[in-house]
């Protein structure tokens, strides 16, 4: 008798879990190691959130949009729980109907009860279905919403955020963590609500049926609590340790496998394997301990539940002997006492899963809380087709507040002129570009374009003025045409082709089988470095910017290919203010002004000829590269 409804409930949950479990399992991305289905078996490590309540409250805001549907779901859960509570009572009644004296069954009553039971089952089935149906929509929409909120946040984040976080980390927040939030919360909320209702309902039913029996069944509760507390206290520490070792091991794996070339060339295989085994063994040991420890819970719980059953049966039997109670009442009571204790165990579990989900949510919110790029000032002007007159006025800047990369830099670039920036690595050349495009804001001083501080323009319109070609030519997966069009989305095909011709890219594109419709793979591996660079230049040409920035645009291309590209770049630079950064001094000799940057300042400036004549730093650098030529 005892197990009837306890198990029914269980089945329902298991049933509901299976498809979701499979889904969340299949969507497991990289980096979610060690959190397989194990988590569902109660062995998943719990990562503790920092501010449980606050995060939960914040998370609720995303659920608020779906308030109406959610309250409908809650209504369903309540009805469902009520039905689940009524069922043991009905079965008890039907047993009573059968156990009237001398095995004579009261079929009239049985028919009615069975009819009611059948209706209850059918309604329950329908409700569970609709609940699942609605929950699918609600939970997925919440996730989609969270995901796009997070993605939208990317726009407002400064480049420094992306510079300081690894891609893997950001990715896992956008996918794994959000996924974790959705599945756990949508499941846990259902369980939490139905659990609380079931406990209360069962308690009330038990008290109605027999207060004395209630007392008898309640004796196991302290045992349950005591057990869960002692075991979870131990396991939590072990799981934490396990998670730590796992993280360490995964870190080692990632490092050694991606650096395997170096390991091989230094003959370090054995050493690395030895180190790996050390951590692997530690993980194994702590894993065994954690698993054994947590494995005690269910069997002991089962024994305790049986003790409860026997207590109820013994007390119930005694009462029945004195005809104070019917057998049917005992039967229903036993069911209720099961329904009462089962959710108690569940609630402890729910708290654990909820904790890890909230920890995930916290990681998501961390990104949402990141400092944004400063908003445009009020009345920010839109800058359109500027002449390209650029002035740096006493600009000081550091990525960190205590270390300045640029110190009090001032210079002027006349419209249409070409400025070259040279200097050793780390001198601050790229920083100047970062400031110009307002990827970062200056710490002090001003940058003026056409006579106005760039902070007085809207950021969008400001960046539209620039065409930037970087060392790492980033191409997106898509066709060649799409990639060039990235410079100006509304460009016509003719314009795209014109830009490609100007960039000297047309020749090789035409040679490809599918021409402009050739698909570029994610890494762009089907194009050579030089070809990619030409596409990036075509993209910049198409954008038709007033100010051009070439940051080491050709340094990853060999010099012969570079000659080819240079031709295209010269065309691009014509009539625009251009900033060129280069290691190779040959690239920049024709610039109007060459500025030598060192230690965050401009140490020399002037034309090539002038700087050579002055025999300063530039002269040294220039002739350094020919030193062994004996020039």
């Amino acid at each position, binding site marked *: *008798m005892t197990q*009837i409804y306890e*198990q*029914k409930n269980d*089945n329902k949950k*298991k*049933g509901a879990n*299976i498809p979701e479990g499979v*889904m969340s399992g*299949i*969507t*497991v991305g990289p980096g979610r190691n*060690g959190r*397989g*289905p194990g988590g569902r*078996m109660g062995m998943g490590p719990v990562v503790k959130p920092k501010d449980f309540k606050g995060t939960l409250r914040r998370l609720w805001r995303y659920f608020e949009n779906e308030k109406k549907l959610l309250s409908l779901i809650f209504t369903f859960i309540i009805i469902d729980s009520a039905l689940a509570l009524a069922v043991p009572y009905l*079965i008890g009644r039907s047993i009573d109907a059968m156990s009237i004296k001398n095995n004579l069954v009261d079929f009239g009553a049985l028919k009615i009860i069975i009819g009611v039971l059948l209706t209850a*089952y059918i309604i329950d089935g*329908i409700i*569970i279905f609709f609940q*699942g149906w609605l929950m699918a929509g609600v939970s997925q929409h919440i996730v*989609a919403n969270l995901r796009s909120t997070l*993605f*939208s946040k990317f*726009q407002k984040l400064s480049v420094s955020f992306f510079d300081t976080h690894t891609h893997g980390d950001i*990715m896992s927040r956008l*996918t794994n963590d959000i996924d974790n939030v959705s599945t756990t919360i949508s499941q846990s909320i259902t369980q939490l609500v139905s659990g609380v209702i079931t406990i209360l309902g069962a308690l009330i039913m038990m008290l109605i049926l027999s207060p004395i029996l209630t007392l008898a069944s309640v004796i196991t509760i302290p045992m349950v609590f005591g057990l869960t507390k002692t075991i979870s206290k131990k396991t939590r520490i072990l799981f934490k340790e396990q998670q730590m070792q796992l993280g360490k*091991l995964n870190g080692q794996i990632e*490092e050694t496998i*991606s650096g*395997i070339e170096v390991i091989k*060339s*230094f003959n*370090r*295989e054995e050493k690395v*394997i030895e180190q790996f085994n050390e951590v*692997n063994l530690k993980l*194994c040991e702590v894993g*065994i301990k954690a698993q054994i420890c947590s*494995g005690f819970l269910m069997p002991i719980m089962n*024994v305790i539940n049986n003790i409860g059953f026997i207590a109820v049966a*013994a007390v119930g*039997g*005694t009462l029945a002997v004195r005809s104070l109670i019917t*057998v049917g009442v*005992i039967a229903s009571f036993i069911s209720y006492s099961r329904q009462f204790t089962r959710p108690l165990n569940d609630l402890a579990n729910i708290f654990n899963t909820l904790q890890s989900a909230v920890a995930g949510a916290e990681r998501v919110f961390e990104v949402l809380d990141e400092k944004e790029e400063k908003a445009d000032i009020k009345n920010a002007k839109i800058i359109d087709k500027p002449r390209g007159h650029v002035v740096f006025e006493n600009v000081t800047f550091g990525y960190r507040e205590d270390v300045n990369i640029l110190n009090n830099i001032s210079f002027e670039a006349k419209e249409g002129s070409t400025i070259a920036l040279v200097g050793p*690595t*780390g001198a601050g050349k790229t920083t100047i570009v970062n400031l110009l495009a307002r990827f970062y804001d200056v710490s002090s001083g001003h940058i003026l374009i056409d006579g106005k501080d760039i902070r007085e323009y809207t950021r969008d319109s400001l*960046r*539209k003025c620039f*065409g*930037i070609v970087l060392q790492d030519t980033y191409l997106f997966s898509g066709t060649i045409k799409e990639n060039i069009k*990235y410079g100006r989305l509304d460009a016509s095909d003719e314009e795209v082709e014109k830009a490609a011709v100007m960039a000297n890219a047309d020749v090789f594109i035409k040679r490809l089988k599918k021409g402009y419709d050739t698909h570029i793979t994610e890494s762009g591996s089907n194009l*050579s470095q030089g070809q990619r660079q030409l596409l990036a230049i075509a993209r910049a040409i198409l954008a038709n910017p007033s100010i051009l920035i070439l940051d080491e645009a050709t340094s*990853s291309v060999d*010099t012969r290919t570079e000659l080819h590209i240079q031709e295209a770049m010269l065309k691009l630079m014509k009539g625009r203010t251009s900033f060129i950064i280069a290691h190779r*001094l*040959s690239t920049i000799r024709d610039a109007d002004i060459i500025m030598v940057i060192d230690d965050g300042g401009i140490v020399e400036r002037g034309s090539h000829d002038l700087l050579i004549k002055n025999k300063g730093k530039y002269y040294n650098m220039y002739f350094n*590269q020919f*030193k062994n030529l004996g020039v």
Partner: protein
Amino acid sequence: MQFLKIYVKRYWKLFCAAVMCLTLEAFCDLMQPTIMSKIVDVGVAEKQMGYVIKMGGLMLMVAAIGAAAAVSRNIIASNVSQRFGAELRADIFTKIHSFSFDNIDKFETASLITRLTNDVTQVQNFVNGLMRIFVKAPLLCLGSLVMAARLNLHMALVLLAVVPIVAIILFVNMKIGFPYFTKIQKALDGVNGVIREYLSGVRVVKAFNRFDYEETRFKRANDELTGLSVTAMRVMAIFSPSITLTVNFGIVAILWLGGLGVNKGSIHVGQIIAFINYMTQILFSLMMISFVFTMFVRAKASAERIGEVFQEENGMKTKENPKEMFDLKGRVDFHNVCFSYSGTIGEPVIKNITFTCKPGETVGIIGSTGSGKSSLVNLIPRFYDATTGSVKVNGVDVKDIDSKKLREKIAMVSQKTVLFTGSIIDNIKWGKEEASFQEVERAAEASGAHKFIEAFPEGYDTKLGQGGVNLSGGQKQRISIARALIKKPEVLILDDCTSAVDVATEGKIREALKEYSCGITCLVVAQRITSVMDADKIVVLDNGEIVGIGKHDELMDNCEVYQDIFHSQLGKEMM
């Protein structure tokens, strides 16, 4: 999945012990409803308190035995699954480290990492599950069927109707579900793809103000994923209630048939209760079985991916009796070497190359990107085998030397600088573990790293993040050069490893190197002509072929490609 055999061999005894405990556990689980029904039927109904206590004691005992079985099963299962997982991981790790570069290229490192982490976890969880519930579910299902049939054959007819229906529902569930899961996985890859591209191209996106475009792209992928997930979950939402409903109908049928039976006196009330218990037991185990199946499919996919790693054989074999190489210290010979990466078609990367580096010589290798420079030097430490022809180090074909001994004599600094977590000194000491601090300093000085390392507050003990994230590209390159120098190899290969260092610093490094590497054969791969100009010999590669070989002056006279490179870098008037 041959590779599993050794683990089966190692653990089958313990596994069987666990399964036996599991069987005992299941048996105890099955006993309990029967005893309970007896307590209700006989004890409570007939008001025999003695019987209640007696049977209650028995039941507690059975539960205790069950618990004992469960605990010991858990102890065995934990040991087996964790050890199995750890051993599997260690074996794959060792296997990967025995791979040649060919093998690694074939898999790609990212995929190797997921195989080592995710896939192992997947398989380990399945094995663990096997010993926890997966075997128990069918046992319980069968046991319940038997017990129910024994209890009352008449009522068991209901099971005959219910079980097949549930089985059909489960089957249809899986049949419909799986295609969705693969589709969802694809959609998820799509979302991930957009994010990954955005992250790598964030500057470009910002520079071109294309956030709206990216957002539309993301929205498209996100919507598709959401739509698919919702549909899939909704389709699946029908199955769980319909299974429950089917079994519940069965319960109603039992109650009715039971009522009839009780009326006839052929059935006890307690039996009905027990029967319903068994029914729910069956339902539960059927659900578990369907879960086991999905788990199995996933674990199988993972096991296959792991199997691929184990199956991969390192084609690079060394001769039975590897030769020693005493003489000709530091000599490198290429003789009619052709090479193409395995699995690629088309022209070979290296065509018919023959040249010699004499001991102590510095040889420059120059050519445009894709001309085969790196591929060529990768043949020296035998990272790859030449397709035809022979590569000799110290006068012996590299195929005849134990790779370990060979690599002891060679130090290579590759284009891609890889540093490891740990301090700077640890990283440099990779080249020579027992090196003294003075040696480390000298190597760092020669590679131009000493100055900036000293400038760090913690100096040589500065900790590096993974991959040396807290260093600039040029700094990383200089540390990796120091790491190679400290080894004091016979052959030093510098593969375009100063590209991120500015010209002036590079010049200084070159000077220092000359002194430090006196007597070492040096192969310098470079794009900058100034890096190789003063080499004893310069090899000019173009399209995998040698188009010129000789000293700078000679090449300026007779090698067109070299002249081209020279002009492109230094301009015409330098002539």
